[in-house]
């Protein structure tokens, strides 16, 4: 057992490359959360709408996103759309797949948060002369964000972890992609991926910590 020499020094040489990869990972995660969050709000409102034309597609999106693997969703973006002769780059496929997934999960988070805000809040806002959209924007949405904040933060961490799937469609610029690229040249699999694991762990912790500080700043009430 263990007739293997760990080559940590060699692996550590690649830290700057992993750093570049980590930035791409963060970029994809942030973008996927922004896109997913915006769509998620629309889906959350759509799922509670009266009209079946709004409810049905929103429900379908949410159920598909939550009941199939994220990897499947990324494959759909990459190979599936590819079959229509549209070329989807690995980056776009990964971003699209994760954004699709985020939107489905965030929609449910937002829907739960919306339900938690009493109808009387809207009534009070309307009776002060606010039109429906204004009442929603100024009174409902800010309160919704507070309730949804923690689950949304967890989703952000999920999004970061999910970006590692990009390597399966050939992405080589994110943290996992860069690691795999170097691995293919050096065969220091364990050392390199252990290093990548540390990177992911630190990023996840920093995001959680940042979110906690942000919550403390934002939600004084």
């Amino acid at each position, binding site marked *: 057992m*263990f007739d293997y020499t760990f080559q940590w020094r060699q692996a550590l040489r690649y830290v700057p490359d992993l750093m570049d990869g980590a930035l791409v990972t963060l970029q994809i995660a942030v973008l996927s959360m922004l896109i997913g969050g915006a769509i998620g709000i629309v889906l959350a409102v759509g799922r509670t709408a009266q009209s079946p034309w709004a409810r049905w597609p929103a429900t379908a999106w949410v159920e*598909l996103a939550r009941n199939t693997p*994220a*990897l499947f969703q990324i494959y759909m973006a990459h190979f*599936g759309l590819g079959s229509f002769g549209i070329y989807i780059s690995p980056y776009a496929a990964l971003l699209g797949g994760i954004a699709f997934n985020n939107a489905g999960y965030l929609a449910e988070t937002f829907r739960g948060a919306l339900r938690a805000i009493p109808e009387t809040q809207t009534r009070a806002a309307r009776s002060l002369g606010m039109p429906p959209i204004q009442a929603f924007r100024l009174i409902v949405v800010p309160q919704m964000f507070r309730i949804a904040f923690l689950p949304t933060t967890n989703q952000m961490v999920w999004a970061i972890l999910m970006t590692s799937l990009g390597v*399966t469609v050939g992405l080589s610029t994110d943290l996992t992609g860069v690691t795999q690229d170097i691995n293919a040249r050096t065969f220091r*699999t364990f050392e390199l991926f*252990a290093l990548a*694991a540390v990177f992911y762990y630190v990023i996840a912790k920093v995001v959680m910590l940042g979110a906690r500080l942000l919550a403390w700043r934002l939600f004084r009430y």
Partner: protein
Amino acid sequence: MLETDLSLNDMMFLARGAGVTLLITAISVAGGTLLGIIFGVARMNLGRVVSGLLAVILDVFRSVPLLIQLILANAFQAIAGLGLQPFTTACVVLALYTAALCSEIVRGAIGAVPTTTRRASRSLGMTWTQDMTYVVWPMALRVGLPSWIGLVLSVLKDSALVFWLGIIELLRSSQILITRLQEPMTILLIAGAIYFIISFPIARLGGHLERKWREND
């Protein structure tokens, strides 16, 4: 798209993949749940230091991508000369991953049982074991079961990643067919539908239980 070269043999191939997916999920969930309960209860009853250490270790499984965990475990077993089959490695990793998530559910569920209730049962002369068996467990089960069903579903979906170790589960088998038949959309849709058919009823059951139990409270 509707014209397809997909043969009955190919469908059987996909079905076998689905079987592998289900088998890995079942083994991992069974092992992971058992471990998760042990870890969860341990974290609530051991000293601060041990419990804190356990918390940090379990947290690592939740903060590192599963794909990386699989790659690391596989590399490690090769280095250590354990000679494990990829299937075994995959099950061990998924079970540990499940255990990490499950221990949180267990902790949350036990924590949701009011201290006053537990004090009442202890003051009736029940032992710790009796208190756990007759009072805490049934109450915690109601709180934890919907989340646990959610966990089962996420393990089912996450098990797709074991293809990296060369295991031909559902998604990997669909990819093999895609390479051969060049009909990505059709094959992916079938694979997606199989996932959905397995997953959706379980998700509904979880939602149903959650609603039913909330109404009774």
